[in-house]
C-alpha cells in the first residue's frame, strides 16, 4: 500500500539573464525547468536522468527549497510547500535531506565530524542536545565508522568514507525523503558499489524515499524503481525501471541507452544516435525540444510541443511519434 510522498505539478523555474549593474535589462531567460509533472511514492526510488544542463539539479534545488519556483506546485505529504516559513519550514527541512556529488566540497573542512553530523539535527530544533549526541553514535554505526571518528576532521578520511559521513548527516533528523544528487559519480569505481549497497540497505531499514539524480544509467538502473528522463527542462519519458530499459519509447531515451549500452568489446556505434550537440538553454528550440537532433523528426515536431501522455500503464512519453 503505497502513498504519494511528493507530488509536482507543472513546475517551472525560469532564470532571467540581465545586463548592466544599476539599470538591469532582461536580455533572455534560461528555462531551466519548464513544466514538470512528477510523483514519488513513499519507500520508492525515482531516478532522474539527463545530460548536464537539462535542469535536473535545478529540480533538486526546487524540491529542497533552495529556490522558489516561477510557476507550479510542489506538494509534500499532501501539503503545499512553496512559500513555507517558520516552524513548518524547519519541519520540512528535517524531513527532506540531501547528499551531494563531491565528498570533498560537501563537508566543511574546519568542522569535526561530530559538528557536521549535528548540524541538521540542531537546525530542525526538535532534538535535544543529549539526544543528538546519542544519535551521533548510532549514525556512525550505521555507516561503518567508529565512535572515536566523531572527533576527526574530514581530511582524515578517504573520498568514500566522506560520502558515508554525508549520508549519515542526512539521516540524522530522521528524514522521509533524501535527494541524492550524483552520489557516486565522483568516487572511484570500486567504491561506488559499496556506497550504492549502503544506500539500498538504509532505504530498506528506514523505509526511505530517494530522488536519485544521476547521469550514469547503470547506477540509476540498479537503484531505481521508476526512471524519469529529462531534456532541456522537460521530462520526455517516465516509466518503471525495467520497462524503460527494455522498451524505451522516446528517441532521446533510446539514444542514452544506446550510448551507455556497450560494455563489451566488439560493439558498433548504434544507428539511432542523435546528431549534433545539445542546444543552449537560452535558446530552446520551438515545438519539441529534441527536434533539431532527432533522427525521427517530422514537420509537426518543429511546430508543436508534444503532450506528456500515458501510452501504456505506468509508462509516460512526450513524443509525437508515440
Amino acid at each position, binding site marked *: 500500500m503505497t502513498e504519494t510522498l511528493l507530488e509536482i505539478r507543472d513546475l517551472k523555474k525560469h532564470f532571467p539573464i540581465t545586463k548592466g549593474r544599476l539599470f538591469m535589462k532582461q536580455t533572455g531567460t534560461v528555462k531551466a525547468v519548464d513544466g514538470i509533472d512528477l510523483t514519488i511514492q513513499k519507500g520508492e526510488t525515482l531516478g532522474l536522468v539527463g545530460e548536464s544542463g537539462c535542469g535536473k539539479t535545478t529540480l533538486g534545488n526546487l524540491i529542497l527549497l533552495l529556490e522558489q519556483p516561477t510557476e507550479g506546485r510542489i506538494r509534500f505529504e499532501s501539503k503545499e510547500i512553496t512559500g513555507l516559513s517558520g516552524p513548518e519550514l524547519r519541519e520540512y527541512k528535517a524531513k527532506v535531506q540531501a547528499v551531494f556529488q563531491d565528498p570533498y566540497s560537501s563537508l566543511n573542512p574546519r568542522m569535526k565530524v561530530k559538528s557536521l553530523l549535528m548540524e541538521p539535527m540542531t537546525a530542525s530544533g526538535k532534538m535535544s542536545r543529549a539526544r543528538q549526541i546519542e544519535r551521533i553514535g548510532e549514525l556512525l554505526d550505521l555507516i561503518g565508522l567508529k565512535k572515536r571518528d566523531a572527533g576527526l576532521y574530514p581530511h582524515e578520511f578517504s573520498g568514500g568514507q566522506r560520502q558515508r559521513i554525508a549520508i549519515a548527516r542526512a539521516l540524522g533528523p530522521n528524514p522521509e525523503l533524501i535527494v541524492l544528487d550524483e552520489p557516486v559519480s565522483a568516487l*572511484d569505481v*570500486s567504491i561506488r*558499489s559499496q556506497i550504492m549497497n549502503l544506500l539500498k540497505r538504509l532505504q530498506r531499514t528506514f523505509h526511505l524515499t530517494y530522488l536519485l539524480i544521476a547521469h550514469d544509467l547503470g*547506477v540509476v*538502473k540498479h537503484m531505481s524503481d521508476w526512471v524519469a528522463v529529462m531534456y532541456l527542462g522537460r521530462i520526455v519519458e517516465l516509466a518503471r525501471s525495467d520497462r524503460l530499459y527494455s522498451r524505451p519509447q522516446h528517441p532521446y531515451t533510446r539514444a542514452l541507452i544506446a550510448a551507455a549500452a556497450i560494455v*563489451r568489446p566488439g560493439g558498433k556505434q548504434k544507428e539511432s544516435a542523435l546528431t549534433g550537440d545539445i542546444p543552449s538553454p537560452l535558446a530552446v528550440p520551438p515545438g519539441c525540444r529534441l527536434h533539431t537532433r532527432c533522427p525521427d523528426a517530422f514537420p509537426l515536431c518543429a511546430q508543436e510541443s508534444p503532450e506528456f501522455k500515458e501510452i501504456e500503464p505506468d509508462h509516460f512519453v512526450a513524443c509525437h511519434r508515440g
Partner: protein
Amino acid sequence: MNTAQLLEVRNLKSQFHTRRGVVKAVDGVSFSVGQGEVLGIVGESGSGKSITCLSILRLLPKPAGRIVAGEIRLNGEDLLTKSEAEMQGYRGSRIAMIPQDPMSSLNPVFTIGDQMAAPLKYHLGLVGNRAAEKVEELLAKVNIPSPKQRSKQYPHQMSGGMRQRILGGIGISCDPILLIADEPTTALDVISQDQFIWMLKAIQVERSLSMIWVTHDMSVVAKACDRVAVMYAGRIVETAPVDALFNAPAHPYTIGLMRSIPELSDSREELFSIPGQPPDLLNLPDGCQFAPRCDQMKPVCLEKYPPETILGERHSVNCWLKADHD
C-alpha cells in the same frame, strides 16, 4: 614478438618527494604500444595512470616529481636522455596529449581559432591564411559544425562536448605518431562521451595512429581499445587484449572491478564490491599491494611481489595465484 613497437616503456619509476615522505606514484611499469595500436590504461585514483603519461611527456611537476628509473623508447630513442629543448619539440608534434576537463584546459580569453593555431605555428610554421584553413579543416574533422564561425568564438560559447572535441582536434593537429588521451570523457555526459569516442576511433583507424587511452571507465575500454593494462598502486597488475580482459580476467582486482560495475550485473540486489579502501601511496605494504583487499590472498602475497606470469597471447598477470601456471 618485439618488432617495431612504437613505444616501449621499461621499468619506469616516477616518484614525488613530499614533506611526508616519498610517494612512489609509478613503481616499475613496463608496457609497449605497437604501430597503429590502441592501448588502454585502466586504474582508479592513486593507480599511477596519469603520472605514467606525464612521465612519457616528461611533464612531471617539479621539483617534487622526478623519474628515477627506467627507459621510455619512442621508435628506439630513449626519451629520458633528451634535453628539455628537444622534448619541447616533441610535445604536441610527435607525441600529443588530449587532457581531461575541457573547462579548464582551454584558455577563456583566446578564441578557439587562436588556440588551435598556436601549435600549428610552433611546430609546422603555419601562419595567416594557411593556418586558418588548417584550423577549419581540423574543426570539421572533429565534427564541429560551421567551422568558420566557431573558430572565432570563445570556449564558453560551446558545450562541454564540443570543447572536448576541440581538444581532440588540437591533439591531432600536428600529425603526432603517438596520441595520449588522459580521461577525456570523464567530464562529459553519456551521449557526448559516445560521440567523442567514436569520432576519435574513426580518426585513429584512418591514420593508423598509435594511442594510449587512460580511463577508469570500462565501457571506454570496450569501445576504443585493442589492448589494456590494468594499474593498481603504481604497478601494472594485468595486461591483456581487450577480449581476453572482458572474457577471462585473471587478476583479482580486475575481476573485482568488472563485477562491481552495475551494467554488467543484471541483478537488482547487492552489487559486488571490493572491500577496503584505495591504497595509501605513502605506506605501501610489502608484497602485492592489492593483497589486503583480496579475498583469495595467501601468505606469500604479503611477503613478496608476484612475478609476471604469461597466460596466453599477450596476456600477462602479476599474481601469486597464477604463478604456478608457467
